[in-house]
């Protein structure tokens, strides 16, 4: 708790206390803590002189922000058009089945988050899957197991 609070205050100190700082602050908080806790919402609201519901209202609008702690690794399956046309949905289905987690949730053992992303911009090499910050291209259902096994 204490460490989180310290980290939070550091972030808040880096930005001017104005409305336009809200999203960069949220991004910075999530980059450090992995998610936006209710504590964070409270502190940010105070620092920017906004209500908690205003902060939450902005944060919940954007797909980037999450409100539960992340799993150890994040799997992003791109479901953009080029990836869709080359079988992206099948990859998502396979991962959902193999990991036993629905899209937008985490595996029960806390190992993986499984999310959908609209487009990573590597369209010429679709379908694309990102795990943490590693991007894999021309992925097939056969390759998925090998990719996923590389992340403990």
């Amino acid at each position: 708790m204490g460490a989180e609070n310290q980290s939070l205050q550091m972030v808040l100190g880096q930005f001017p206390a104005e409305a336009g700082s809200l999203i960069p602050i949220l991004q910075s908080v999530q980059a450090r803590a992995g998610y936006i806790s209710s504590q964070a919402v409270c502190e940010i609201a105070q620092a920017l002189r906004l209500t908690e519901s205003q902060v939450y209202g902005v944060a919940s609008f954007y797909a980037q922000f999450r409100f539960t702690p992340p799993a150890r690794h994040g799997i992003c399956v791109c479901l953009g058009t080029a990836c869709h046309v080359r079988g992206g949905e099948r990859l998502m289905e396979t991962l959902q089945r193999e990991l036993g987690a629905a899209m937008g949730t985490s595996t029960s053992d806390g190992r993986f988050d499984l999310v959908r992303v609209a487009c990573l911009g590597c369209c010429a090499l679709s379908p694309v899957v990102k795990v943490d910050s590693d991007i894999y291209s021309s992925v097939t259902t056969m390759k998925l197991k090998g990719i996923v096994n590389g992340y403990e």
Partner: protein
Amino acid sequence: MDTSRLDSLRELARKDFANLASAKVPVVYLGAGSCGKAAGADAVKKAVLATLEERKLRAQVLEVGCVGPCYLEPLMDIAAFGNPRISYANVSAEHATQILESYLVRRDPMPGRAVGHFGDAEFAGIPRFFDLPMLKAQKRIVLRNCGFIDPERLDHYLATDGYEGLKKALGMSPDALIEEITKSQIRGRGGAGFPTGKKWRFCRDAKGDSKYMICNADEGDPGAFMNRSLIEGDPHAVLEGLLIAAYAIGASSGYVYIRAEYPLAIQRLCKAIAQMHEVGLLGTDILGSGFSFDLHIKEGAGAFVCGEETALIHSIEGKRGMPRMRPPFPATSGLHGKPTVINNVETLGTVAQIVRHGADWYRQFGVPGNYGTKTFSIVGKAKRTGMIEVPLGIKLRGLIFEIGGGAIKPFKGVQTGGPSGGCLSERFLDTPVEYESLAAAGSIMGSGGLIVMDEDTCMVDIARYFMGFCAAESCGKCTPCRIGTSQMQAILKRICDGNGTEADLGALERIGKTVKAASLCGLGQTAANPILSTLRNFRKEFEEHIKHKRCRAGVCQNLFLSPCQNACPVGMDVPGYVSMIAAGRFEDAIHIARETNPFLSVCGRICDHQCMLKCRRNQIDEPVAVRVLKRFIGDLARDRRIAPKVWVSSERRPERIAVIGAGPSGLTCAYFLARLGYGVTVLERLPVAGGMLAVGIPAYRLPKDVLEAEIQLIRDLGVEIRTRTTVGRDVRLGELFSQGFKAIYVGVGMYGDRAMGVPGENAAGVIQGVDFLTDVNMGKRREIGRRVAVIGGGNTAVDAARTLARLGAEQVTIVYRRTREEMPAFADEIREAEQEGVRIILLAAPTRVLVDEHGRVKGIECQTMKLGDFDNKGRRVPVPLPSSEFTLDVDTVIPAVGEFADVRDLFRDHTVKTQRDGTIEIDDEGRTNIPGIFSGGDVAFGASTVIKAIAAGERGAVAIDRYLTGDCTRVYPWRVRSRSPAPFNVGAEPVAYPMLRPALLPVAERSKSFVEVQESISSEVAIKEAQRCLRCDYREEEV
């Protein structure tokens, strides 16, 4: 103004860069954009550095941006020893080491491994990179530096005349600057195409002491990544443009709003901005001009709608990214209520060059009203995917086929403009790529994403996909978009699940038009474009999903059991019989297969196996050898005398049906009618039954006894086959009705050989293809010469050629006017023909048959062809090359260039509707315009495949049954699909061995004999092959 510091930096930079370019020290270029990295560039970089270290090689390693052909990534280029820079494609870590050692140590550049070079002259037989088909038509203006400079070095940008545009701009008045941009007629490249100069003018003229300049780098269109590539490959190009724009409008502060999903681009941008600060290109009094500007980066947070101007502004202000009503437009009231210009990355990337070279220079590219160049991404099912830049005005056909190489499988359509755009079918291929033309075609230019689609793409699924995307990204503020998109998504989902109704299509159109007219912002206003365009251009697919519960592309999984079964024209239960073979239950396999197809042994030898083309096993290694397995059970049934146990109606019907033509379509029709309890008489003009199966296909492909055994099974059901009876001559069509037949099925096929249309065609020694094969198959050997030319590239031509080789011709030559890949005949047939000594001359067509004094063939004059423009199918039309005639010395010519139907005799007493090519016009069920007369097979479709004829026969039988009973609700048992009861271990790994290839008779034994070429297989081999099946029919609910 004081540019002295910048100028001296530039001098140094130029020298350094020239040094680099001269490659006195070898330079290794690595494609290090996000695409390159996704393809494995990091591993390549590691290997490169390691190799240079180990071998103590001196070289500079430069990580550069994307040069365009992403499908070739990872790309590694080497410039060394004064040679031009050479590019190597699809390089792995191992390749990188090999190539480096070969070139830098042994001075062997491995030309065979190279994809292109960047020099001007010829070099080592390697093609010039910019002459490659994908690059040739491109004009790289905004992308000029990508792939050629290190994007993280300001000095590289300076060396290529970077910030010269800014210098010139700062020396002009803002009004003159705006005038120049207006004169260039550059239009916003974000999608709407609004004239950039005009937008700047509005903002300049707006009242306000502080103004903002924003670069919209929120490239949200899935499929578009050109902005990302530009920022990653040449960030300063965008920033210089931004600065020029800011000066023009009088802004003192600005932002780059960039998607968080582009971390590498953000990183490069940050670095570039820091570099600008270092040399005084940002901050107060830039270059001593009096102009001050500060720039910040704002990252998007994953909302597509924030690409819309007002939503973007709200996001910067720290609010929910929801758009607002316009007017007022951002140019007058934008960020924080101040006048703001928002320009796209590509627009800004071009501005500096327009200022440097002038508006007139820019207008030399493109066409009036659409000047300049535009970047596009070619993605999806194209052969050559990547990023390109072309002058506007080029046709879609040029982009997709010339540059993109066409679709991998037959082209179906292209989607342009992202979720705001439309799906265009092949008839739009001549649309020039211009803002207005694309809008008129029902799509938009958009940000430039081009998604190529082929026959494996379901257009209903695509409409559903885009609607789902818009529904998910809708901000929710206005009702039409929020509710309309989710309602349309729900309807489309129902259609894809097989629960659609006719009324749904009208609902989609109505809701779509409302959403378009009443939504608050561009997202809603264009959300309906994909569905409205797919409905307009691909309506048939929607109707198939609704009326027939059929997804022809094999995508909507609730509509079919497995892709193989779905691709089969007859809908054979492929997983059913294959899984039974895998379990060793051969008899069950036979009965399952025979339910839908009486011709197992036949199809097992000659079918064009659409099932195998769609087999999911293709994604692992090769398809399951379904055709071979089908032959196995067909032959087994005959060998072990297993009588078919198929569904047969318990009631006997009083009506008798006449079937004209004992070919595959007629016999199949008889087969199903007999099972439905009808009396059937088949009337056949030839002395044998079987149609093309008997007289068109040679015995070495389909032995006569094999065919006869399966025809016998049809007779065993009570069908009467009367040969040597020609309807139209021996008995009139009308008489059949008076004889008591209640319905007639016409399956007479196509037996007329098309003429070549050249002089000398009627000489002795010219024997039409189908006639020739018929005579040989009927045992009426014809006199053939020693040297024979067969004209054509389909199965008839190849059958004729292989038959001639067996009959003792010394030299058989096939002459075909297109390329080998385009020959319609089966690839393995062509290969076997060549093994048997048949010669194939491609890209040639006959112009005249040469005749001797006795009127006999003595040769054939041909002309060489070259491939011209693309047609709508993506095939190049062959065009004769002038003065390219050559003569073939032959004494026999067999034209096999196509067939035609002639039913005039048959229908002398009736007015049957025919098509222009003589085929009978039928509806989806097989009904002709004459009540009681039905048709199918080649005589109705044109020359087609056996399995399609079989499917037509089945449809005809059902249509006749419906006609005679008046009952349209009947369920036909053989049409009901259910999952195979064969066991399946879903957790097991697929078996790893490759596809079975049955042995072929050795070539030496094939000549002079019509013994079957493909050998049969054993039970063990069949089981093993069947176990390769992935059981796509399996569903988890089945316990």
